[in-house]
């Protein structure tokens, strides 16, 4: 049960968050936002996923090649330079509080914490606040992730409506042969149709560029090369076992 309440430096002065990899990070893919493509594409394969029932499009970073496998996590935590914001945010989320003083309808985002999350305690992990209530480095890291998510929600809509209106996605079938016996299939995944993208002209091209989406689509395309890095990681781990 999610019990998110507004974080403050008085009631939560002693709170710590366990950021060790055991808890919650053993997932083989993560939902990612348009605002983080330019970083994440350097390390993770990024593919579009269409929910077969709702038709809703999302962008996923592939972290592992089988269920619950995250190849980027070791005993010392994340081995990648970048971490998908949704996983980096830990037990924190953004909430919206109605601005009461002013006349406009603007809502101020506030940071909330799920105090029932098993990673939250007063004993183990990273301090959220400094000794006298200042913001600890970990809280700054979380804030960045929350901002990425917050602005990503809006940017995603732009990205998806543009690629759909220009019909730029094509299904991709990913079959990975790890060994003679082990083979992995991903379904319902899509990537950018490179031919269509490179043949875009005039208005469409200008629009993609203007909205800051053109480079992101090339990043997504080139991120497919990271599957090989994933296979190497997997093989290296298997060899160690």
């Amino acid at each position, binding site marked *: 049960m999610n019990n998110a309440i507004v974080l403050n430096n008085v009631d939560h002065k002693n709170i710590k968050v366990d950021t060790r990899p055991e808890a919650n990070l053993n997932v083989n893919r993560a939902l990612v936002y348009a605002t983080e493509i330019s970083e994440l594409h350097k390390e993770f394969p990024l593919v579009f996923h269409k929910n077969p029932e709702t038709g809703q499009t999302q962008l996923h970073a592939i972290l592992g090649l089988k269920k619950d496998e995250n190849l980027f996590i070791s005993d010392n935590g994340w081995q990648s330079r970048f971490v998908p914001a949704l996983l980096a945010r830990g037990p924190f989320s953004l909430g919206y509080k109605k601005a*009461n*003083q002013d*006349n406009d309808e603007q809502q101020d985002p506030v940071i909330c914490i799920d105090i029932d999350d098993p990673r939250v305690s007063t004993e183990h992990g990273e301090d959220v606040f*400094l*000794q006298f209530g*200042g*913001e600890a480095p970990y809280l700054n890291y979380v804030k960045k992730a929350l901002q990425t998510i917050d602005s990503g929600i809006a940017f995603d809509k732009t990205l998806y409506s543009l690629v759909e209106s220009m019909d730029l996605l094509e299904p991709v079938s990913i079959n990975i042969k790890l060994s003679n016996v082990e083979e992995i299939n991903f379904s319902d995944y899509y990537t950018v149709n490179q031919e269509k993208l490179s043949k875009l002209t005039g208005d469409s091209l200008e629009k993609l560029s203007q909205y800051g989406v053109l480079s992101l689509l090339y990043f997504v395309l080139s991120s497919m090369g990271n599957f090989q890095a994933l296979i190497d990681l997997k093989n290296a781990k298997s060899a160690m076992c």
Partner: protein
Amino acid sequence: MTIVKNNVQIIEGITPESIPFDQLFSQNKPVILKGLVKDWPLVKLGKQSSAKVMAELELHNNKKPMLVYQGSPNIEARFGYNKSCTGFNFTAKKSTIPEVFGDIRSQLTQDEHDYLYVNSLRFDEGFPELSQSHQLAFTHSEFNQNQPVSKIWLGTESVAAAHFDQPKNIACCLLGKRRFTLFPPNQIDNLYPGPLEPTPGGQVVTLTNLSQPDFTRFPRLKEALANAYVVDLEPGDALYYPSMWWHEVEAFDRFNAMVNFWWLEAEPYLGNPMDVLTHAMMSLRDRPIKEKEAWKALFNYYIFNDTEKVREHMPPESHGALATMTEDQTRRIRAMLRNNLNR
């Protein structure tokens, strides 16, 4: 109530285009600008009836939701605290001008009625066209850096307890009689200011009731009242008063309208002095008295006394924060303070 001996200077025969700003600023006291806005359309309309003013305001309102204070009959127009000073004797809710006016109209014939107060609503946001036709000409170098912001204040009878604001103010009475009771900033000792938060309107207010003074509980209030300046405004009159002066504002009619303009004189990039005060409470107030005396000397030397004296014996290139603040210097200091505070 104690008799007040202060007279307020009155300037007559001026128009919104001919405000003698140098004369206003030279006194550092309240000045009545008699009949300054008597030709404003809403003031003229008010001569016919208050119902017409309400209709005109409604017609030109953008219907956007805004905040209204609502109090039951027993608050007797006085928007203030509850008994424990932890909350208020009124509720603040989102509403619209037509709704608020509807409520006021529906109770016009009743002796007992709710008190409703739309305060500090940006005139140009609530009533874009009317704010254009109800302007003053701000022709003084003081306004180059800080353009005045115009606000409108509407509602039934109301009393806003005495408080100070940082901006300078020209308040223009449009409809209904209005009384300002003003005190110079040094009267704070005698005004019994209430909690720092919550506050009824963003500023600390006195806990005293000037019209029914309780001298047993607030004996020094007598002294404050002896130093008060009382100003009664009729529709069409305006009042200038300086920055930081304490003022209680009363509106007496069943429907009242006021527009004010306020502006800061200092450069906008300077920090907020209220933050200095709050910071001093956290960092200075509870230190040993000897230490505090030393700090008082430092504050006098660096902040309150002759600022030239602090730097005149040093080469200019070494002045740093001792030189007159520039925008870039405030940026550096802001970053440093932010960093220092995070502990």
